[in-house]
């Protein structure tokens, strides 16, 4: 079985375990394995960089060094923040010799070294470009006919690097949804920001941004939103009550991971997809396609 090195990231350990479980399950279903790298640490996220630059790059590079030690090549992430931070660390170390030297000097204190041999990739990229949509289609046992999905990419999947999709108007997840038999709705805000951590630090701004997304998806007729970012998922589903209270309309829209949706279409065991751990239950919208035919 083909193997990819895998970096889950902190938020997938508990809060968003369904993203981790469903990613591993879908990978197996498609014939490859996500092999977690040993004793990884936090990538630094957006917060560490706001306090310390060199130290942020250094701890981020420790993960790349571990991956490199375990075998050069692809390091797959699913959290888009981890994806951007790790990819940025790799790129900046490559482009800035002074930074590379300093970071490697720091790593040397722990007998580690990063020489640029890792390619940071997002699981969506692997599924669409390595496995391929035709192969995915061939594995679908429960086509999602009639299901309208809003594909929400958020910020850090295609920005800033735009490695495998358009930074302004990404389309890979829409193509994937189609391959699963679903209908992606026209969702112009698909790459706009949900507010990220501002939902915590500047709540009124965060709430407005997330409200705009949910209302837009709802207006487009979506039955649910699929996303590829753990923080987006949390923001999208956790504040719907507050949105109703503040802006008047309850979006009442489930938000799940694209891997969970894939799992349903591939007929993978529901319990391995973490479905039901959401705060807005997606199972009613998916009832038709779930193994038990929705009778629960």
């Amino acid at each position, binding site marked *: 079985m083909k193997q990819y090195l895998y970096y889950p990231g902190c938020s997938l350990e508990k809060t968003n375990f369904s993203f981790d479980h469903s990613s591993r399950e879908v990978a197996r279903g498609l014939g490859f394995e996500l092999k977690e790298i040993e004793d990884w*640490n936090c990538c630094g996220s957006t917060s560490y960089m706001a306090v310390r630059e060199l130290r942020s790059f250094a701890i981020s590079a420790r993960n790349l060094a571990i991956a490199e030690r375990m075998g050069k090549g692809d390091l797959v992430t699913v959290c888009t923040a981890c994806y951007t931070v790790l990819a940025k660390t790799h790129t900046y170390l490559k482009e800035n010799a002074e930074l590379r030297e300093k970071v490697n000097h720091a790593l040397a204190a722990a007998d580690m070294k990063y020489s640029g041999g890792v390619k940071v990739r997002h699981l969506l990229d692997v599924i669409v470009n390595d496995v391929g949509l035709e192969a995915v289609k061939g594995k679908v046992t429960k086509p999602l006919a009639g299901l309208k999905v809003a594909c929400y990419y958020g910020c850090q999947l295609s920005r800033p690097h735009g490695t495998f999709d358009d930074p302004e108007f990404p389309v890979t997840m829409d193509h994937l949804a189609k391959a699963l038999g679903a209908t992606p709705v026209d969702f112009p805000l698909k790459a706009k920001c949900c507010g990220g951590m501002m939902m915590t630090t500047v709540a009124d701004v965060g709430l407005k941004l997330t409200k705009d997304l949910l209302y837009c998806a709802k207006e487009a007729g979506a039955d649910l939103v699929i996303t590829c970012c753990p923080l987006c998922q949390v923001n999208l589903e956790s504040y719907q009550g507050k949105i109703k209270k503040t802006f008047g309309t309850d979006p009442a829209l489930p938000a799940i991971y694209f891997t969970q949706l894939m799992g349903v279409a591939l007929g993978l065991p529901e319990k391995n997809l973490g479905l039901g751990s959401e705060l807005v239950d997606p199972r009613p919208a998916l009832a038709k396609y779930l193994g038990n035919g929705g009778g629960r």
Partner: protein
Amino acid sequence: MPDATAPRSMKELHKIFLEDVYKIPEGENIKQCIQCGTCSGSCPTSYAMDFTPREIIAAFRAGMLDRVLKSNTVWMCASCYYCTVRCPAGIKLTDIMYELKRLGIEYGLYPKGTTAPVLSKTFVKMVDKYGRSPEMELLSRYLLTTNPLGMVGMAPMGAKLFFKGRLGIFPKRIKGQKEIAKILKSALAETEEPVEAKPESPKEGGHS
């Protein structure tokens, strides 16, 4: 070791800022800003900023960077990278925002009541301690510092997440904590950045 909280001269602040920005790959593009405002027009939060992204560069050129730092501006940046990918001059505005956030934290130049620096600083402490981000402890510490009453408001959502098995009560420590400590110590020695006044102190949010 300079006193991190001592106010510096404007000239010195600008010098540090520019030196750091030039270290960003293609950082010198900042000289090419034509004040077109694409960044401000693309920014999802510029409507809430005291200075829009375009105005940050204008203020810098006018020698008023301290006013930007003392405003809410940089803490309204959600790091969405729209400005960066759209700038016709190739200026990496998001990285500049990070630099401004660091300067603000380092010199205590952010407005009272801004809570994002508290979150960032707490995050760093947690990651330095455990190697990973313990979300529960991070949010609790942040709320205790910034808005203890907010804990009550967050309780219902916390309870829901708990019953869904999504709340990690105990922080997870990585095995390589000593490795991380060594890397951090060595990185600290590499940099001439002043150590923040109290990076390891348990008391938070004491900046003025």
